[in-house]
C-alpha cells in the first residue's frame, strides 16, 4: 500500500484524528495524527490485513522548539513491505499522548525514553519511569529550552 492509500484509509476511519501530513516530495511520507488517538490508529494499522504494520521500527520524541513537542512513529510491515511515518504533535504545556505499548511491546522502552528526555507523558503506559537518566534527575534534557543544572545531589555537574 502506498502512503496515500494508508492516509485515505485512516481519514475514512478516523476522520479528523488525521490532521494532515506530507505524502510526496519527502524521503519518508508522513501522516499527522491527533496524539490522543495514537493508540487506536496504531492498533488499526497493525491489525488491518491491508496495512499489517507488525513492527514499530522507531518511536522518537522531538522538540520542535517554541513549546511544540512531537512523537514520531516509524512503522513497518514485514509482510506487506511498506513503511509509514506517523507524527503526533502536542504542546509542551500539555504533553500527553496515548501510549502504544499495548500495540507493540517495542514502544515500552522507547516511550520511557521519550518521557525521560522530553517529558512527554504517555497515557496508558504501564511503567512510565525514567530509563536513561537517574530517577531523581530534574528536567528533561533533550528539550530545546533545557539548561544543565549546576548541581546534582550536591555534585557539580559541568565538572
Amino acid at each position, binding site marked *: 500500500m502506498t502512503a496515500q492509500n494508508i492516509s485515505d484509509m485512516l481519514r475514512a476511519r478516523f476522520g479528523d484524528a488525521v490532521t494532515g501530513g506530507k505524502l510526496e516530495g*519527502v524521503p519518508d511520507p508522513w501522516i499527522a495524527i491527533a496524539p490522543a488517538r495514537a493508540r487506536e490508529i496504531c492498533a488499526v494499522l497493525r491489525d488491518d490485513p491491508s496495512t499489517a504494520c507488525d513492527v514499530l521500527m522507531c518511536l522518537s520524541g522531538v522538540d520542535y522548539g517554541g513549546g511544540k513537542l512531537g512523537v514520531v512513529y516509524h512503522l513497518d510491515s514485514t509482510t506487506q513491505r511498506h513503511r509509514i511515518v506517523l507524527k503526533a504533535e502536542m504542546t509542551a504545556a500539555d504533553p500527553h499522548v496515548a501510549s502504544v505499548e499495548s500495540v507493540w511491546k517495542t514502544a515500552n522502552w522507547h516511550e520511557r525514553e521519550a518521557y525521560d528526555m522530553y517529558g512527554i507523558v504517555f497515557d496508558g503506559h504501564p511503567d512510565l519511569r525514567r530509563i536513561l537518566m537517574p530517577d531523581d534527575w530534574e528536567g528533561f534534557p*533533550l528539550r530545546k529550552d533545557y539548561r544543565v543544572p549546576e548541581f546534582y545531589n550536591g555534585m557539580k555537574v559541568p565538572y
Partner: protein
Amino acid sequence: MEEMMTQPPAAPQAPTTVPGFGRALKTEEMVISMGPQHPSTHGVLRLELVVDGEVVVDVIPHIGYLHRCFEKHCEHMTNYQQVIPYADRMDYVAAMSNEFGFVVAAEKLLKIKVPERVEYIRVIMAEFSRIVSHLIAIGTYGMDIGAFTPFLYCMRDRERVLDIFEETCGARLLYNYMWIGGLSHDVQANFAGKVKDFCRYFRPQIKELNDLLSYNKIFIKRTANVGVLPADVALNYGVSGPVLRGSGVQWDLRKNDPYSVYDRLDFEIPVGKGLKGTVGDCWDRYMVRVHEMEQSVNIIEQAVEKLPAGDVAAAIPKRIRPEAGDVYVRTETPKGELGYYIVSDGTASPFRIKVKSPCFVNLSALPAMSRGAMIADIVAILGSIDIVLGEVDR
C-alpha cells in the same frame, strides 16, 4: 499470526513456591542485584533478579549507567561530520557498521550519490565489522557459559581484522572511516590480497570453533531450549538481527530492504531452525551468528572481486547543509536494525538525531525470555542477545 499478534502471549510464569514444600515451609523470594558490576552483564547493566532459590521469577533491567548523551551531543555539533566519531562510540565493537548507518542516512538527507568504489569498500568494511562483532559475541558467550578458551581464539582472529582496519584507516577500534559522501582514505595497495588471505585463514577457524564450542554437548545442554523467544513475540517486541533470525524469521535488511550494493551480492540469510531444541532458543541465536560469519566471508570475497576503480573522495560535499526535513534510515548492523532518525532544520548542525539502537530493543525483550529460567540461564540468555551497553545507553 494475526490473532496471536493482538494479544502478545504472556511469558510462562514460574511457580513462586517449590512444589511439595510450599505448604509445609514458608518460602520467600530473594531479590538479587546482578550488576552494574558483574562479569556477565557485558558492561554496566543492572538486572534486578527476583529469585526463588535458583529459579528466576522476574527480571527487571535497569539501564542508563553508560548514558553519554549521544543525542544531546549531536544537536550541539557544528556539522554533521562531527557526529561520526560519536556514532563510532555507540556500538564500539562494530564501529564501522554504526558509521555506515549514519552516512547512509545523511546521504539520503543530502541526496548524494556516492561512487561505486566507496559503496563496495563500505560493504567490505561493514561485513568485516560484522565478523568482528560476532567473534566478540561468540567468544564472550562461551565465557558466559564457562568456556574460556574459545574467547581467546575469537580475540586472536579478531585481531587480524583489526590489523586490516588499522592499515586502512589508522585506528583499530573507533575508525571515523566512512564519511558523508565518501571515505577518509582509499584502501591501501595490497588490500585485496590481505582480505583474501584473511578469508582463506578464517574459514577453518570457524570449523575449529564449532568443534570446540558449538557442538559440545555441555554447551548444547546449556543453551538449547533455554530462553525461547517465539517469532510472534519477537516481532511484537521489535527485536532484530540475530535475535529475530534465531526465532526463525527470515528478516535481514540487507535482503529485505537493500541499501548500498547488497542487492548485487549473493549471500544467504541464516535463520534458527531449532536443530538442538526449540526454534528461538539461545543455541539458535548463537548459531545464526556463526553462520552469518561464514556468509560475511562470502560477501567480502565477492565484493573484493567486484571492487571497481574510482575516487573515494569525489562525492564528499564541501559544505554539509541539508535542507529542512527528516529521514529515517535503517541498516543491518551485527546486532540488528540500527535506525537513524535525522531531523534537519536547514542549518549545518543537526536539529535532532534519534538512534534506534538494536541492543536497546533486544534487551527490552529479556524479561519475556527469562521468566522461569535459572540464574545460570539468565547469563546464557543475556549473552545470546549480545548487547553492547554503549549502544543500549548511547
